């Protein structure tokens, strides 16, 4: 107990948020890797990400493959070591915790993985898989643990009788339920759900989305919901953060991101999502982006999206756009818009109303 109190003193408090205390606060988080093989350079998978996750909310993190969203999720849980930056959980910096301390806190932070086939040990029974965290964190053992495992299985919509069965006896959706039961075993506050429905059939995806929502209501969970599927993200999330090549480019309410995206990348991403309605599909104008996502090794200078952006001007190649609150609670990283002129289509060619704010931010960063 005493060590816990001591911890509080050592911890640097995060930037205080006026309205509510965030459950998770991420500050300038960076995860850099050495590329595999003989290639030189650094893979900047996550490169200076700052955001808060508030208690009881679902924050959707969306982006294309290679944008760093999974790495970010793993770095928050320290399943991958961050290179720099802080992750505060209830005001404690997780990045500073030693192994033993970290383990104690990790109980409150859990993860659900994408692939229900490879994330369950094939040689363990469902009872052992779901019961293992109970033993690890010394929450329950023996008969009591078994009882709890059975309750957990029922909570996620599986039969109590499954306790002696092995993962291969289950379908993808059922396995994902087992993974969820395992995450819930230790009564966490916060769950990183990394593409939890991507490997599942359409009819099963809806079941898992509904289950996650039900559990959130019943257990007051907070989720970081990582997905490339904008339809699922829109449905499951309260707020959405859009990631591109290691950086956040837009953060807003889920409805707003859809109805009123500000940043050109978000606009393109949303327009690329096929809508299950032939009449809409036949008439709507789709922004088709040219080219591929550039490599995270030596990413483009300036705005990382400028190589594919139909709105890019000369300054976009040089200036790194900061995440600016363009509208209330709606943040976007683009120098071609500003709080005064949030609509990029109304900005005159070659104008960059957000440029001065970007330069200021760059100066501040340089001084620090």
């Amino acid at each position, binding site marked *: 107990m005493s060590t816990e109190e001591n911890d509080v003193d050592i911890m640097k408090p995060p930037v205080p948020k006026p309205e509510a205390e965030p459950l998770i606060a991420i500050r300038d988080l960076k995860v850099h890797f050495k590329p595999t093989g003989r290639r030189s350079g650094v893979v900047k998978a996550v490169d200076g990400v700052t955001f808060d996750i508030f208690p009881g909310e679902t924050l959707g993190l969306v982006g*294309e*493959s290679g944008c760093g969203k999974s790495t970010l999720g793993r770095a928050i849980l320290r399943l991958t070591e961050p290179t720099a930056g802080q992750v505060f959980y209830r005001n404690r910096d997780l990045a500073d915790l030693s192994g033993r301390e970290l383990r104690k806190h990790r109980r409150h932070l859990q993860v659900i993985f994408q692939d229900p086939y490879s994330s369950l040990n094939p040689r363990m029974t469902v009872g052992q898989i779901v019961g293992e965290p109970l033993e690890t964190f010394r929450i329950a053992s023996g008969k009591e643990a078994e009882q709890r495992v059975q309750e957990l299985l029922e909570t996620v919509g599986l039969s109590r009788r499954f306790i002696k069965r092995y993962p291969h006896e289950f*379908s993808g*959706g*059922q396995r994902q339920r087992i993974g969820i039961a395992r995450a819930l075993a230790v009564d966490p506050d916060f769950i990183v759900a990394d593409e939890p429905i991507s490997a599942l*059939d*359409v*009819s*099963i*995806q*809806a*079941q898992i*989305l*509904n289950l996650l*929502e039900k559990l959130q209501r019943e257990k007051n969970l907070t989720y970081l919901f990582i997905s*490339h599927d*904008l*339809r*699922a993200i*829109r*449905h499951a999330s309260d707020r959405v953060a859009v990631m591109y090549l290691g950086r956040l480019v837009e953060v807003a309410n*889920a409805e707003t991101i*859809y109805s009123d995206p500000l940043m050109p990348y978000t606009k*393109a*991403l*949303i*327009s*690329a*999502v*096929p*809508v*299950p*309605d*032939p*009449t*809409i*599909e*036949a008439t709507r104008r*789709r922004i*088709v*982006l*040219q*080219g*591929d*996502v550039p490599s995270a090794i030596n990413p483009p200078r300036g705005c990382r999206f400028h190589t594919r952006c139909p709105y890019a001007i000369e300054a976009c190649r040089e200036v790194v756009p900061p995440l600016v609150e363009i509208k209330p609670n709606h943040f976007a990283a683009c120098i071609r818009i500003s709080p005064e002129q949030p609509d990029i289509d109304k900005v005159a060619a070659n104008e960059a109303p957000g440029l001065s704010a970007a330069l200021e931010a760059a100066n501040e960063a340089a001084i620090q």
Partner: protein
Amino acid sequence: MTTSNGHLLEVRDLRTYFDTEDGEVKAVDGISFQLRRGETLGIVGESGSGKSVTNLSVIRLIPEPPGKIVSGEVLFNGVDILGLSEEEVRKIRGRRIAMIFQDPMTSLNPFMKVSRQLMEITQLHLGHSKNQAYAHAIKMLEKVGMPDALSRADSYPHEFSGGMRQRVMIAMALSCAPELLIADEPTTALDVTIQAQILELIKTLKQATGTSVILITHDLGVVAGMTDHVIVMYAGKVFEQATTKELFATPGNPYTKGLLRSVPDPVSDKGELYQIPGLPPDVAHLPAGCPFAPRCERAEEICSREFPPFVELTRDHYSLCHFAHEVYAESKTQAGG
């Protein structure tokens, strides 16, 4: 050699079974459909519904054993592909009927330059000389939007991104100007912005060449934007068949209705998502009666006892359901209101 009704492809009562440890699996069990020239047909279904096996049967690529095309006809320009010799099929496959698969990395040879893989096809099927084939390969790569095609043609597959590899696959598939292109989940492995590029490309090329397309997908959004007709498969059977517009507006089958309702709609408000209860069927052990009955919210006693009829709702709209007319009428009222 065209059939009198102008169909490029007509599949009649196709049955493809597999021998497994679990017993005989009727992966495709009495499928019939037609494809008109220049049309795009979507085949929708979840895993195990038989949508891929249907198309592998059409081009006779079912591994035998354990698989076996038990019965049926696949009339391509009026000729039954199932009755042809292996050699005759090989002349059609790749030349008149071409395929694109989900994973472009595993369908390309990693040890061969992309140009050589493209050249092989036209050298074989069109009798091109090396020079002709090379020129044609470059032309095809340019057609599918490969930037800098001339200098990149001699690269190996691993040097391309997923989207570019899929473009190479499309270039290969279209290099003999096939009459039919079968695309099996062509964009499932790709990111949304790349998916948009590839779908746009397939659309443009289809318009330019008049190729008919069968698009297999689990994504109802892709179906809505790309196809003229749709068939919905479940447990090896066609559950519903209609024009795309009609299927989305007034579905006549409870399974289709459930599928459509379970996709999150980005435009509408959130709230609990409709979910089809239960699990996809185990095709090796299908229940008696309608295979969807255990998951169907409007199933009645007859559904678990008798196999449902394939009901004609309108001239182009069929549904496999005991209550097809009722379901269709409900959809009509919902669409009207």
